[in-house]
């Protein structure tokens, strides 16, 4: 049995359905992420787990017990808020002590537990500081310490790193991964940042319009998106739609209007004449000057229309003779070469049939 079970949960605000019949389960010790654009229902779902909101239909079960009748204070879950929500009139120590005080932990046992929680988040020695004397990253650590000090069954994190700058965010991401491993508490993490979700999670539920579009491990979410939305939302993706015109074992050919037949491997068996989309990551496309390599796969000629130099990589937007745009990526790893091509260059693109991913429909 899963630790946390969301069963057919729906939440409506007037005409708007924020969460639409969502079912998922989180295992003990799992780092689970709800990922989606703003307004997709991920925060509403989190609030229903925390008890700040109640579902209109469906149920939230923890260890098999329906939490419907438990107010937030009686649920063994804790939340780390995006705004930190530290109590400004209490010191770091006071903030971390508060849940212990509310849980009626004897005063003599508190100092030791507070010290342990602060050590977990590497804030030893900050006990007497007030929240306004801390940096954003430190505040977030105090919020995590306050949430973990009573050893909840589940820790809910609502975009906890969104307000921090990129460098600090990466640092804290690594710390969160290590912390989660250390304490072994299930994390339910809400974010709209797909790279963060991919980096942190054991499993990701991609949400859109209140529904779970796809629930899987990060590598499968990225490599095998099951819808156009997921493919497009997670990373960059070339998407080409067309009809299935030929099938040869596991390989199908899709007639894409601006490209002609494109061959792609698939495990599903789409019927001839059915429509589908090929999702192709830019880094899977080989881009080269000169003659096409004589390898099986897909080959196209085109002209570099735009390029984006990003430092580590350069993104090339290539226009084919059919008028289709293909986005390809090249690492600038070779000595001195900042860019390999310029706008207007003729290039040759190719990718093997198993590079792309077929999405039916």
């Amino acid at each position, binding site marked *: 049995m899963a630790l946390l079970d969301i069963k057919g949960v729906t939440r409506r605000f007037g005409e708007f359905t924020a969460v639409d019949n969502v079912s998922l389960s989180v295992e003990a010790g799992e780092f689970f992420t709800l990922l989606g654009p703003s307004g997709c229902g991920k925060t509403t779902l989190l609030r229903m787990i*925390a*008890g*700040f909101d109640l579902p209109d239909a469906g149920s939230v079960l923890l260890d098999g017990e329906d939490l419907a009748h438990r*107010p*937030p*204070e009686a649920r063994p879950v*804790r*939340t780390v*808020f995006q*705004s930190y*929500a*530290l*109590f*400004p*009139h209490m010191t770091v120590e006071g903030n971390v002590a*508060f*849940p212990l005080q*509310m*849980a009626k932990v004897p005063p003599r046992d508190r100092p030791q537990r507070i010290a342990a929680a602060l050590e977990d988040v590497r804030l030893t020695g900050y006990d007497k500081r007030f929240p306004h004397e801390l940096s954003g990253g430190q505040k977030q650590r105090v919020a995590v310490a*306050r*949430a973990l000090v*009573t050893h909840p069954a589940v820790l809910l994190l609502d975009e906890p790193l969104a307000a921090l700058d990129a460098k600090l965010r990466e640092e804290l991401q690594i710390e969160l991964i290590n912390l989660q491993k250390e304490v072994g508490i299930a994390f339910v993490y809400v974010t709209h940042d797909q790279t963060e979700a991919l980096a942190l999670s054991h499993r990701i539920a991609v949400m859109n319009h209140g529904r779970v579009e796809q629930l899987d491990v990060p590598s499968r979410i990225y490599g095998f998106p099951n819808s156009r939305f997921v493919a497009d939302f997670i990373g960059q993706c070339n998407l080409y739609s067309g009809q299935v015109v030929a099938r040869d074992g596991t390989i199908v050919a899709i007639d894409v209007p601006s490209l002609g037949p494109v061959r792609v491997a698939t495990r599903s068996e789409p019927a001839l004449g059915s429509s589908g989309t090929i999702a192709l990551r830019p880094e899977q496309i080989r881009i080269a000057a000169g003659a096409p390599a004589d390898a099986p796969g897909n080959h196209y000629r085109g002209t570099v229309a735009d390029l984006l130099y990003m430092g580590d990589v350069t993104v090339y937007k290539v226009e084919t003779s059919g008028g289709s745009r293909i986005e390809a990526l090249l690492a600038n790893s070779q000595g001195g070469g900042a860019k390999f091509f310029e706008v207007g260059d003729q290039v040759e693109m190719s990718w093997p049939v198993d590079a792309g991913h077929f999405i039916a429909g």
Partner: protein
Amino acid sequence: MRKSDPWLRASALVAYAFLYVPLAIVVVYSFNDSRLNAEWVGFTLDWYRKLAGDGAMIAAAGNSLVIGISASVVSTVLGTMAGVAMHRYRLRVLPLLILAPIAIPEILTGVSLLIFFVMLNVTLGLVSVAIAHITFCIGFVAIVVRARLAGMDETLTEAARDCGASPWNAFRYVTLPLIMPGVIAGALMAFTLSIDDFVITFFTAGAGTITLPLQIYSMIKISVTPEVNAVSTLLMLLTLVLIIAAARISPTLLRSTQESTS
């Protein structure tokens, strides 16, 4: 606003003079060594000395103090509750019901309270005056407390609940300490309103109970003696100190009352 605009400066000066010159005259003549408020004779503290020996005046001040303290304590508790309710339940009718007593002409409040007390056979005296003062102070406290709550991060209350606090504990340990400046400012305001009030007190005090404003009124019926000037000066000073204290404790006080009453 440009500081260098001479018209603006002049009109501001006139406005402030209009407000404060009469008060300044009262203060100045309280130190005047003459029985008449007509011309400046010389500096004296005699009127203050006389005040200190005036039994009726001291008794009236004592009554005002008792009424002021009890009215401010009770109205602060009730007004804070009303402020929290207004903040939490965004019903438009709630603020209206709380603020109406402030906007209703005092004389109406005074008359209606008098009729109310007589109907219920309440003996007019300290208690009836205190109750009357509580009714019009609640609204002021509620406004200040609500303004303070509006500036508070909503998630803090949620965070408290999340940390295991019952609604009452979340209020006691998180909300109340954070709105405390508003609560104290509200209490100080209630006290100054109570100690200054004449109209409502006049209707609800009955025959035997004299407060400071009532005593001053009865004295000027005969003539405005410099002793009245002296007691008015002290009253003004007390009010000023309390208002400054309230404004310092809650910087949003002045702004919020303007917004809510206009």
